[in-house]
């Protein structure tokens, strides 16, 4: 199977280690691609199309899903301020979590990058490792830390004399933002870290030899060069935060609904699938537009850096 295709390709060029694909404009090696292609058409494209169609179906308390085409769900989302509020909350939480992650994640990536070898690897593991730990376990940690008025965070803040009375974290947007920022932080650090690897240390040394202070170097040499990393990390964090489910559900509770938890409710509690599908499709469209739009802007603005 894979042999026949690769052999002919291998015989045609004499550049063995070359990573460049050869045979420009040739026909696609379908025997290799077809299984995955069919799988994706059948189990990704078709279900997504069914979901979009579902959002145009009607639903009644006693009739269930009715297979008619109607704009009812979309009109309901459009006209009911509840949905406007919910989407505004979703994107507000995602935006603030992204800001939080950028403000703390970018400097941390810079500090990490300047560490000596054993420490660098160790702390990279400590900071990026949580990425692979279950979101539920990490969010549970925040629920324990926040835990009502005598949660550990409040106790610590009051012992340090930073506050007089406990702040509510559980079931508030603040709590969701902090927990989400923690869950998404590794993506930001990773993205800025990748950008830092492309920075030529000689430029920093040149600036130093010309008498630039540390702050000047960070502001005028480092920041402009890692900005694409911060921004692309920001897009990832924003997209994942806006569609996050477990964290807003556990920390936000039943009343602080975001798009993902509302869609879940419509599907598994209210059983109004068409409305839930409409909410999900709207979230998908909004995110795709935001991701594609901001990627285009970043790439145009920073095309120099990517070259």
């Amino acid at each position: 199977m894979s042999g026949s295709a690769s052999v002919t390709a291998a015989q045609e060029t004499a550049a063995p280690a070359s990573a460049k694909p050869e045979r420009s404009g040739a026909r696609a090696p379908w025997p290799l691609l077809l299984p995955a292609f069919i799988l994706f058409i059948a189990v990704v494209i078709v279900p997504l199309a069914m979901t979009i169609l579902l959002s145009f179906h009607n639903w009644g308390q006693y009739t269930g899903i009715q297979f008619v085409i109607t704009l009812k769900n979309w009109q309901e989302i459009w006209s009911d301020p509840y949905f406007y509020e919910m989407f505004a909350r979703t994107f507000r939480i995602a935006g603030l979590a992204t800001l939080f992650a950028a403000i703390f994640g970018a400097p941390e990536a810079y500090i990490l990058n300047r560490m000596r070898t054993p420490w660098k690897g160790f702390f990279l593991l400590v900071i990026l490792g949580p990425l692979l730990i279950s979101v539920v376990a990490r969010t549970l940690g925040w629920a324990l830390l926040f835990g009502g008025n005598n949660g550990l965070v409040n106790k610590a803040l009051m012992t340090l004399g930073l506050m007089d009375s406990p702040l509510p974290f559980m079931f508030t947007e603040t709590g969701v933002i902090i927990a989400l920022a923690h869950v998404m932080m590794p993506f930001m650090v990773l993205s800025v870290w990748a950008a830092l690897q492309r920075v030529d240390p000689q430029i920093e040394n040149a600036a130093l030899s010309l008498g630039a202070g540390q702050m000047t170097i960070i502001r005028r040499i480092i920041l402009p060069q890692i900005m694409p990393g911060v921004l692309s990390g920001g897009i990832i964090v924003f997209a994942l935060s806006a569609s996050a489910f477990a964290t807003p559900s556990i920390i936000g509770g039943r009343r602080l609904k975001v798009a993902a938890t509302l869609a879940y409710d419509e599907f598994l509690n209210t059983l109004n699938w068409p409305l839930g599908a409409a909410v999900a499709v709207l979230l998908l469209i909004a995110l795709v537009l935001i991701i594609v739009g901001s990627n285009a802007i970043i790439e145009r603005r920073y095309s120099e850096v990517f070259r």
Partner: protein
Amino acid sequence: MSRNGSLALIFHTIFVIFMVAPILVVCLVAFTPEGYLSVPMNGFSLRWFRAIADYPEFINAFWVSLWIGAASSVVALLFAVPAALAIARYQFRGREALSALFLSPLMIPHVVLGIAFLRFFTQTGLSGTFVALLIAHVIVVFPFALRLTLAAATGMDRSVEMAAVSLGAGNWTLFRRITLPLILPGVVSGWALAFIQSFDEVTMTVFLAAPGTETLPVRMFLYIQDNIDPLVTSVSASVIVITMLALILLDRFYGLERVLAGHSDRGR
């Protein structure tokens, strides 16, 4: 020791505490001897770890997670390895579009995937089955399997393959004895990362899981929705420890940085 100033080190310390605190607190509370949520002050106890044994739902969910994770990663690789070889070696029309399609599960929010799969499997009569869960997980982990295999296939030295062909190796022999061993590190890490993704997945799975096909994160999530008690912290602590062990193995075997690089542009 470090070129960082003291201000940077203070920032770093606070940052590390922020990252580690929630994970540490789960592990601490899991050892409480009390019957309620508390950080153990006088003495640790394993009672809540023993309590897991009396709660078969968690044990079953753990096995479901293990099976789904292992099987979906293998199946994903069966589809991803040929696709990765094709994408790495051929320049053809629609190559970019195909890559985008294969990586699309990274960009589609998992809640949308969950809904789409629920609708799809309900319509096809597979709803609530192990097979449905497996197929859904194959799709979700596919990009991770593809990306690491692709990286290995792209960086591969092709001269060995050419030598084998000139010595008369057939297609299958070539793949089995030359190509596969050369891309094996990528394939194995792809499997490991795919397994972890499947093992951690909750948002999409929560839509599909029925009693009996609940994965561990889903069981934990549903449990937490009802109440938070030391039992769920001991389960979480176990999950954390298992993940840490996998992490250390992965780091030794392949380098965590390279594995995690598979994550870095998932939103793009």
